[in-house]
């Protein structure tokens, strides 16, 4: 809890904006999408991992810029859409919103503590799944099932993966 409060208490003006190499900004999302395309074929139990979403949340939180979050989320979402069977824009819109809100949150809080990252990853996973279901039902008229309990459990699992993943991605930060 103290970890969380420490993250909240830092004054807004002193927060740093992380910088990454362009290779990182392109390579990591590509690797995340490839992971989702390729790995569940051999390890079906890893299909629950929404790596593109976790990557979107991480970079949006670190860059602290809502326009960056919007563009970053949109690009990853559209790339995901391109490889799926849905119309283009479904994952795009949802991840645009995730990128925007994650960047907005990071302007208020220092999201470096593990607990805060856990909570944010869980929240954004649930938001992502719920909003996708809303879009599929409302815009496409599809009868997609939404199971809150299952989504909550998957959210916890994704959040548990997010914490060490974010820690690893921190190593790619090239901010002076």
């Amino acid at each position, binding site marked *: 809890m103290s970890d969380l409060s420490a993250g909240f208490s830092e004054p807004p003006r002193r927060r740093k904006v992380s910088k990454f190499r362009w290779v990182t900004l392109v390579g990591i999302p590509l690797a995340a999408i*490839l992971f*989702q395309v*390729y790995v*569940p074929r051999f390890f079906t139990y890893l299909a629950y991992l929404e790596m*593109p979403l976790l990557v979107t949340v991480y970079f949006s939180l670190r860059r602290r810029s809502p326009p960056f979050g919007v563009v970053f989320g949109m690009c990853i979402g559209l790339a995901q859409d*391109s490889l799926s*069977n849905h119309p283009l824009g479904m994952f795009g819109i949802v991840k645009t919103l995730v990128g925007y809100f994650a960047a907005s949150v990071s302007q208020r809080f220092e999201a470096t503590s593990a607990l805060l990252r856990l909570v944010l990853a869980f929240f954004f996973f649930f938001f992502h799944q719920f909003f996708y279901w809303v879009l599929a039902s409302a815009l496409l008229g599809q009868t997609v099932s939404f199971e809150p309990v299952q989504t909550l459990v998957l959210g916890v699992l994704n959040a548990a993966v997010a914490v060490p993943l974010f820690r690893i991605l921190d190593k790619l930060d090239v901010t002076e």
Partner: protein
Amino acid sequence: MDLILNRYRNLTALVAAIFVQLVLLAYQVKSNQEVRLIRVWAVSAVTPLARLLEGGRSGTVNFFRDYFVLLDVREQNKRLQTDLNRVQLENQVMRAELDTAERGKALSIFQEQSGMKTIPARIIGNSPGSNGRVVLIDRGTGSGIQPGMAVITPDGIVGKIVSAYPYASNLLLITDPTFAAGVLSQKNRVHGTLKGTGNSSVIVDYVQNEQNVEVGEWFYTAGDDRIFPKGLLAGTVTAVRPGRTVKEISLSPSGLQHGLEDVLVILEGDHKPIPDLPPPNQSVHLQPLPPAEGDAGLAGDPLNTAHNTSNNSGGAQTDLDREVERTRRIGEDQKHVFGERGRGAPDFNKVPDPSVSRPAAAPAPRP
């Protein structure tokens, strides 16, 4: 205006991005067309990497399997018996080669005997998102694949191509909730629509409660959906329950029961009649050849027996082959030489003696 846009810069960026994507979405839904260029770019970017990953994975697996595991076995067996070790190693290598050869042979035999123009493909990836059942195969428009083409294995139908790109295609599996195909039951000739459920099983919809469907009965493709040729195995009935308006029929898809690795894409289909017998359980999974249409009254006909023998041996493959064989046997029995001037025609109603030994049926050349 500029002041407002600058002040609400973040919100403006969000609204603009959402608006663009909504327009894109609306265009696709309204026109029922996909934005092909973006998909082609994305798939073309991912396919080489997926191939590279697949190559790396299979190489690593083979390395560990063929080197470390066998090295370990060798070490253990050295302590026990050196000769036995060598035999075991040889045996394992040969078994692996045999497995690979058998799988390839089964696919190759089926490809030849099906009478359809097909192309083999390998599954190289899954589609993102956990809702759908779409996989990526390593053949695309460069190999003649087009959206809507049926995909099968020797065990049965697998799915259909939903989008084709230069070097890869998206394959919608029959277990996807949006999949549908016309099917016909083998025993009672009940017509229904096969639909995916998102799970490992599929259902047959639109079968009236009054119609008779039994557990264990086979369903074949009906051919009326213009995707799958008639007479391909779809699956076997695992459960039947009367529903509110139509029967609730669960099917175990036969095409997916041995896992998915190699598949055949049908480039040119060939409709076949639904066989009267369920497919035999044999090690090489081949679809049974259909009996000749209208042969029901020839149960005791030795020629008909000859047809079946010929079918099982893989000699006569089509109705024309069987008819050529029948004519040839009648000619032999009546000492008639076809094509000789002034000989007329043999009596085709005279059934030849079944005790006369028949030479092995050579497949007749197809016209």
